[in-house]
């Protein structure tokens, strides 16, 4: 039985697909991996997968798109049986799909930029996590700081305050504000395949931390 890693965020444009595609590509180096795009019809991850397939880079990776939560659960059930990792890219809404992802995932990643709007949007996710725990459903959620400007004091302070306010733990690895992510995504590549050493290193550290979280 594989492990499901869900990527959820109710705000758009925070880097869900960036995280999902890069993580899927990285995990596919270690084992059979599936990437499910639950943000159809936008389908950034699915488009990335298509590009990757056309350039013959899929390797151990399978990419699928689903339109609703029932389709998502049945697809996840099918893929988790034959893969080591299943990465799910959620929609930018607090819809049924997002709730299903949160409960299914062994690890639920919440990409977050250090902006007030993104932190407010995450408060809704926190409400859902609390609601789930009231129903005795444990959600193992972690913030992944994205587009983080480590050297600015305001970003660090906002980051700490947000973690405290939201009551969520963040992963120690943070992703910086780099064009490498969007450039690689647009070409069906992962950041590991893009000539930006800083981006490669920070993402590799994130993947290592995620694998540690998953106990693999």
């Amino acid at each position, binding site marked *: 039985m594989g492990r*499901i890693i869900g990527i959820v965020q109710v705000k758009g444009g925070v880097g869900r697909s960036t995280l999902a595609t890069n993580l899927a590509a990285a995990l596919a180096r270690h084992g059979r991996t599936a990437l499910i795009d639950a943000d*159809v*019809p936008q389908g950034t991850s699915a488009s990335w997968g298509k590009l990757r397939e056309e350039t013959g880079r899929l390797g151990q990776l399978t990419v699928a798109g689903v*339109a*609703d*939560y*029932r389709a998502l*659960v049945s697809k*996840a*059930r099918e893929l*988790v049986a034959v893969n080591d990792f299943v990465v799910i890219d959620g929609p930018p809404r*607090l*819809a*049924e*799909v997002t*709730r*299903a*992802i*949160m*409960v*299914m*995932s*062994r690890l639920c990643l919440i990409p977050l930029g250090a902006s007030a709007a993104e932190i407010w949007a995450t408060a809704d996710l926190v*409400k*859902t996590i609390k*609601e*789930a725990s009231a*129903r*005795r*459903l*444990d959600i*193992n959620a972690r913030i992944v700081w994205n587009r983080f400007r480590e050297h600015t004091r305001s970003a660090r302070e906002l980051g700490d305050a947000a973690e405290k306010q939201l009551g969520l*733990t963040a992963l*120690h690895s943070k992703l910086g504000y780099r064009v490498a992510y969007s450039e690689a995504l647009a070409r069906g590549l992962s950041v590991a395949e893009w000539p930006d050493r800083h981006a490669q290193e920070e993402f590799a550290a994130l993947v290592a931390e995620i694998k*540690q*979280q998953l*106990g693999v």
Partner: protein
Amino acid sequence: MAKRRVKQNQDTVLGDAILAKPDFEQALAFAESLNQTTGVPFVPSAEPRLHDPLPAVSVQSAVALMPQDAASRRVLEARARALAKPLSQQRHALHDQYLRFRLGAVERYGIPYAYLEELLYVGNLARVPCTPAFVSGVVNHRGELLTILDLKQFFRMPAVAMSDEARIIVVKHDGMRTGLLVDGVDGNVAYQDTEVSPPLSSEGVSNMEYVLGIHDGSVTLLNLKALLGDPALRVHR
């Protein structure tokens, strides 16, 4: 640093519930419980019922005018769910095309393909005496007499001089073939009926009953059934 180490250890020790994941049935149940607990808060039953007279208030908000009782809420909720489905799931969404044309210099109109027969160049248009102004005349169309309507006249739009781009759109409805004189044909547009917005009613618009809706914000889709069925068009009776 010591603090961080402790945190990491806690992170790696996962609870049994997390290790047992994924539980798909739980995920489905939690997904489906969305509207029971979150989202728009339900108005408690103490609110006025659907048909009860509204309490006198100086300012009525749109919410106050909405039905408040449980049964109506259920109907509205079901409706909202149906509308909230992605477009691909809305099976009633018809994919269709219309022919886009111009009347005057700027006004753009469309006629659904179902009514179209063919397009003609404006040839020998013979005026017919004693007919209303909106009848431009008749043409010989493969041995048949085809009545040509001037939609600008019919819609009481200002007349403009006919240019080289003017065409006759031959439409057919109820066995009646009619030519529509237009100032230019722009081409085909694919559309879904979900993309057509209802026309905005405004004062001084005389052709509202002939309008199916507005596509793309600026193209008026004509309701040919209403237009050609208009008794005003039947001059010889």
